């Protein structure tokens, strides 16, 4: 196994070739915030929270902003993960997420267990410097067991990926563009009408907010369960089926 050495926040870190910057930083116990990334699923760099400043790669000296989850570590790279510029970008990204949708924590199923709510604390967002949009969005309650509240969706696409890559059903996709962009089930049908859905609930388990939820859950009752997906992916990858 070949190894490459890079510097993250002035620390030398050696990782196997092919490791992403996010994995390299986490192996070195340097936390980089993420929302769309989830171990066990492919990385798509949708949320932009894991942006880092990279220099020394491809002969470029000026720092470039790259998403750590999809950037492969190379020999001699120099990475900064928490400069004032990056912290400002991260807070702005979280403010954009809050103001783009309708995230009313007080009445949410995920209140107290929400990755977006936690991220606001982590980036120091005590208010939004951007105006709230209050978009008119729908709630799909056509499925017998689950609901989808588009007001709370941050378009991380974890549901799309888990359904496609792990469950193999590909119920979810992303439809429309710009401010109309939203998660769609089937060919833009009500979720309950999509025959491909196996009712497995993996999408609900990995949703970082209260957008996907069990119908039985009320205020503050929804807990995410990404560890279930990770246990399954681990078992399949290593053919280890008994814990």
């Amino acid at each position: 196994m070949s190894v490459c050495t890079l510097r993250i926040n002035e620390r030398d870190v050696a990782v196997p070739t092919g490791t992403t910057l996010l994995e390299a930083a986490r192996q070195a116990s340097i936390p980089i915030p993420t929302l769309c990334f989830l171990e066990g699923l492919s990385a798509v760099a949708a949320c932009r929270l894991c942006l880092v400043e990279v220099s020394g790669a491809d002969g470029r000296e000026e720092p470039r902003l790259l998403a750590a989850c999809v950037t492969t570590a190379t020999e001699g790279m120099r990475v900064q993960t928490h400069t004032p510029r990056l912290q400002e970008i991260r807070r702005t990204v979280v403010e954009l997420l809050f103001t783009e949708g309708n995230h009313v924590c007080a009445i949410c199923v995920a209140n107290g267990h929400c990755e977006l709510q936690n991220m606001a604390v982590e980036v120091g967002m005590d208010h939004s410097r951007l105006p709230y949009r209050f978009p008119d969005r729908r709630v799909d309650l056509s499925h017998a067991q689950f609901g989808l509240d588009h007001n709370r969706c941050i378009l991380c696409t974890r549901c799309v990926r888990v359904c496609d890559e792990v469950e193999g059903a590909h119920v979810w996709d992303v439809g429309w563009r710009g401010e109309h962009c939203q998660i769609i089930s089937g060919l833009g049908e009500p979720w309950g009408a999509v025959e491909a859905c196996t009712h497995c609930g993996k999408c609900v388990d990995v949703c970082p907010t209260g957008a996907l939820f069990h119908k039985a859950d009320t205020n503050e009752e929804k807990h995410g369960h990404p560890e279930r997906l990770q246990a399954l992916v681990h078992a399949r990858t290593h053919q280890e089926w008994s814990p």
Partner: protein
Amino acid sequence: MTKARLATVWLAGCSGCHMSFLDLDEWLLELADLADIVYSPVGSDQKLYPENVDVALVEGGVANTDNLELLQRVRASTRILVSFGDCAITANIPGMRNMLRGSDPVLRRAYLELADGSGQLPKAPGIVPELLERVLPVHELVPVEVYLPGCPPPAERIRAALEPLLRGELPQLSGSDQIRFG
């Protein structure tokens, strides 16, 4: 030492932030030694917002003409304005009417569509304040010095903000205990 002049203000909110303020329990007795409560729906009988207020906790979004008028008076007469709770900071639950796009659809929904047949739109100029087209967070209308999120902010969080403010310092709030929404 002269006592600080403290006010609390109730705009479009459920008063839960004020209930949380009352949850300060026995610390309220210490607060009474540190500050004069010069205006407050729960701590003063003063009807008009006074001049020269040092610190004001402002609960609620800005939903109608009364809210807006009072907020402007508060801003003009207050040194440190604290946006107090999620409704003041995000418009929160009162702001959910903004999704209906305008005050007229909101009034029609509430007073006509959901009425039992005898519904009528409320109209009493000079008595019932007119709704603004949108409920807005306080800081979208006037400058704000301190943000105290939470629905409601727990009593300890209010104390963590008030203690430095009454010493004349700005609180540095961070971490899950002090700046969490919801």
